[in-house]
Every structure is written in structure tokens, then in C-alpha cells.
């Protein structure tokens, strides 16, 4: 069984982003980029399934402009076998379009499992995996925190409101990762060297026959309404007094 892992190149989660003053978007020039943290978890899970003999090949795929191959290379350094890069002009490709591109690749590659992140930490959409599942008419388990594969079935524990839910999915299926599924490995130096020789196939939306023109029009992007630091209180008594008499919340 092949496993396909879509990985997105995003602003590193440690970076405090800046909104452009003209409202046209977020400053991305010369900003540290990294693989979306949920996608690292997805790569790790795919590698563990391969190591456990449940999968034969792990393929990392990414949709994006120049330098996107660096993110695919990171997946290869973690241990993925090969990469596919869908080259685009723009970094902001909407989830619906990404899902259509991924569907075309799934049709070509025939994986038994696609593991995506539950959400990209730049657009915070939380859509792509579910959309891909719909387009393929495959079952899905979002927010996975434990995955077990036996034969043609994936048993998945999911993080839901109020607790945990267990689903059984008939393969092929779509999973999206939650934070506690696993702890991703770091790429070792030898593996980083080895990854340089692993193949990355390049394709485009046109090759795959997918229209990726955006559907939503972004009118503006602004800073959120700021919140300023309040006061430091010196004692519990002062705190309780302020909560009661100033803020009126107790």
C-alpha cells in the first residue's frame, strides 16, 4: 500500500507575522518558512506505518511556487521515498483547488491512504482533507490521535468535542492529523544527504487538468484589534477587589 502525504510550506510557527500596512496581505518576503506542523505529524505517521510493514511507499506531495521543493525535501529527509511538486505561480491556492489537484494525483498513484494535516497554520482553513475525501467518495477520519491498520481497515481514534471517538474506515481512506497523534522525528544528517538524491517529480495544474483560479476574493487583510496590557496587581486582595469593583465580573 502506498501512502500519500500532502505537505504545505507555511510561515514557521515561531514567527510573529506582520500584516502589510496597505492591507494587501501578510509580509512573506525573507520570512522563515517551514513545513506545516500538522503535516510533519502526517509524514511521521506514514513513516511509522511503513516501518511497521503496513505500507510500502510514502510519497510527499506539495502544491506551491518556487522553493516549495524545500518542504518536499524535508519530508524526504524524514524518510519519505519520493516527492511530487505541483508548481504554481502563487502560494495561496485555495483548499478546494488543492483538493482537486490531490484528487488527480490520487487517481494516478492509487494510494490506500492519504494523510493530511487537520489544518494549515497560515490559512487556518481545516478543509482540504475533507474536500479530498468528498471528491474521491472515500471515508474520512479527521483529527486523528491514534491510527491502527489491520488488513483493509483503519481504526482511528479522533479528538472530538467532549472527548474521543473511534471509527473504523474501509480503505482507501483519508486521515487528518491532530497534535497528539505522534511526535515527529528530526531528520538526521545522513538522511538529509540521502534525501538530496531522492526523486521529486514536477507537474502543474494544467497538466493535471485542474482550474485553480481562486473562488473567494480577498478584499483586505488587517491587524486584529489590539489588546493592550492592563495593570499588575500586588496581591490577591487587590486582584479580588478589582475583579469585583472595577471589572464587575465576580
Amino acid at each position, binding site marked *: 500500500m502506498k501512502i500519500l502525504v500532502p505537505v504545505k510550506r507555511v510561515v514557521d510557527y515561531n514567527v*510573529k507575522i506582520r*500584516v502589510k500596512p496597505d492591507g494587501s496581505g*501578510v509580509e512573506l518576503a525573507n520570512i522563515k518558512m517551514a513545513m506545516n506542523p500538522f503535516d510533519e505529524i502526517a509524514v511521521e505517521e506514514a513513516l511509522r506505518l511503513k516501518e511497521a510493514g503496513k505500507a510500502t511507499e510514502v510519497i510527499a506531495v506539495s502544491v506551491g511556487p518556487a522553493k516549495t521543493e524545500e518542504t518536499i525535501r524535508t519530508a524526504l529527509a524524514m524518510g519519505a521515498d519520493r516527492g511530487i511538486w505541483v508548481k504554481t505561480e502563487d502560494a495561496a491556492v*485555495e*483548499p*478546494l483547488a488543492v483538493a482537486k489537484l490531490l484528487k488527480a494525483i490520487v487517481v494516478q498513484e492509487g494510494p490506500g491512504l492519504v494523510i493530511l494535516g*487537520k489544518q494549515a*497554520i497560515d*490559512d*487556518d482553513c*481545516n*478543509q*482540504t482533507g*475533507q474536500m479530498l*475525501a468528498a*471528491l474521491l*467518495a*472515500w*471515508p*474520512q477520519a*479527521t*483529527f486523528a*490521535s491514534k491510527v491502527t491498520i489491520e488488513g483493509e481497515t483503519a*481504526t482511528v481514534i*479522533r*479528538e*472530538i*468535542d*467532549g*472527548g*474521543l*471517538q*473511534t*471509527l473504523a*474506515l474501509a480503505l482507501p*481512506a483519508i486521515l487528518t492529523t*491532530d*497534535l*497528539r497523534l505522534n511526535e515527529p522525528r528530526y531528520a538526521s544528517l545522513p538522511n538529509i544527504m540521502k534525501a538530496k538524491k531522492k526523486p521529486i517529480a514536477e507537474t502543474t495544474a494544467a497538466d493535471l487538468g485542474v482550474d485553480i483560479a481562486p*473562488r*473567494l*476574493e*480577498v*478584499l483586505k*487583510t*488587517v491587524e*486584529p484589534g489590539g*489588546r493592550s*496590557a*492592563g*495593570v*499588575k*496587581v500586588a496581591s*490577591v486582595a487587590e*486582584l*479580588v477587589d478589582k*475583579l469585583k469593583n472595577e*471589572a464587575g*465580573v*465576580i
Partner: protein
Amino acid sequence: MATLLFAEHDDAHLNPVTARALTAALALGAPVTVAVVGANARPAAEAAARLEGVAEVLLIDAPAYAHRLAEPVAALGVALAADYDALVAPSTAVWKSVLPRIAALIDVMQVSDVTAVVAPDTFERPIYAGNAIQTVRASGKKVLTIRTAGFAAAGEGGAAPIREAAAAGEAKGATFVSEEIAQMARPELTAARVIVSGGRALGSAENFHSVVEPLADVLGAAVGASRAAVDAGYAPNDWQVGQTGKVVAPELYVALGISGAIQHLAGMKDSKVIVAVNKDEEAPIFQVADYGLVGDLFQVVPELTAEIAKVKSNS
């Protein structure tokens, strides 16, 4: 045309986030039908019918919809979609899983986590963990999930008609195995007026129980946690507040031993009043706190609990 709002419920009860999502749905300006999809869900449908501003409740009741698995519910949503201009749902685990499936099948790009309705076709939504707010315009049919923390709940006192509709669409492949839902006497995080959250500093599940919970008890609060506390096993996963956990905006949010990473702030910085207790006076949480107390939480919190208990018993 009209708006279809999917209700969040557990068949027996309507979840209060539904009333908040209704306020967003009504802001689109068209009559709102509330869809209650479930198995033995009439009680939830009756509660939905009492919400003010609802034109009609659509009850789709079938065994296939128990637990609201994404595949059958999305197939139903696609069948219903033709009659509505906008499909709306609260951003809960259920609807985050279902709505994008419907959107893809009707070839619409979803707008996730709407925080404001600017016009019937224009919405605000946070990106980058709430560090930027995007205004987007959607043409044609709309599919929206609503971040309910920012909307007031619609009132009660309505009496909308309940219409039963047939199940539609088939979907195979996923089967429900089991569920572990914590039974809690406390208010639910997303509906709570007061939240007390603990961070890594708590050090153990026992300390959550003996330090955080008594304070929550005197305040009648829900309990939340940082990711670090959840990862370490001090608190269950669905207590996590933040970019990738619950987004909350209570009247009072008390952060105990939480540093204030941007991913945590993303989930609570719209709270009305924020209190932080942290022994590091440079902790970023103080930059958003209305009232900061620098100190050891193990000393401060029991004192605070006792003080508040005193104030409450005097009033």
C-alpha cells in the same frame, strides 16, 4: 432564497453554540431554516424551534445519522443544498468535518471560522492564529462555518414549525465503533461565562484537580488548558484552548501558569477580562492580561479561591 443552518446537538439537547451561529445566519438577511440531523433528535428539534428568528426547523431523523458521521450527513447536505443560498454551521468538531465535504461536492469554496458578517456576501475571518483578519467576498452559493465565540446567542421564545424531511444520499466506508465523552458537571468551554485554564506549570493531573478545579468551582467556571498541559496528560484533550483547540471569549478568563504563546492567545484573547497568574513577570500572557499577578500559582491560587469564596458568600 433562504439560509440553512445546521444545528449542533446530541439528539437530546441542542448545544448553545447553535443559538450563536443563528445570529450569524440571520445576519445574511434571508429566512433561516435550522436543520436538525440525528437519530431520535426530536427533543433537539423542539429546542431549535424555540429559538427566536427561526423560520422553520427541518428534522431529518434516521439511524444513519446517529453520531453524525461525516459521510452520510454530507450526502444529505448535498441533497438539501439546492434549496438554499447559504449553508451555515457552527465551527464544532462535527461540522468542521462535514461542511467541507458538502462544499467540495457542490463545488463551492468554504469560508471557515467566520467572525463577522460584513454584508450577505462578505465576511471576516482570522488567519495565522488570529494574528491577521481577512475580509473575503464569496460570489454565488455560500458555505460558512461560524466561530461562535464572537456572536451573541439568539434569544428564546420563538415557535417555529417543525417539518420532517426524509433521509437522503447514501454513504459507506466509515462505521462508528465507540465514543468516550467526559460527563462533566461544569459548563462547557465554548458556552462558559467564566473559564479557568491551567498550563504546564501545574505539573500533574492531581494539581489540576486540587488547585485549578476549586477556583473554577467558586467561580462556576469551565476548566481549560494549554496544549502543553494536555500533551503532558494533565488535562483531557478537549480542554485545550488555542489556535488548534477551542476558541473562547468568556467574560472572565483566568490563565494560571500559562506563558501566553501566540497559539494559546489565538484561542482566548477576545475574552472580555483576562487575569494571568505567572511567576515570570516577562511572560507574554501579561501583554494581554487586564490584571496580572506575578507569583507562584501554588501559593496564589488557594488564596484567591478562598478570597473569592468569601466575596461570593457575602453577596
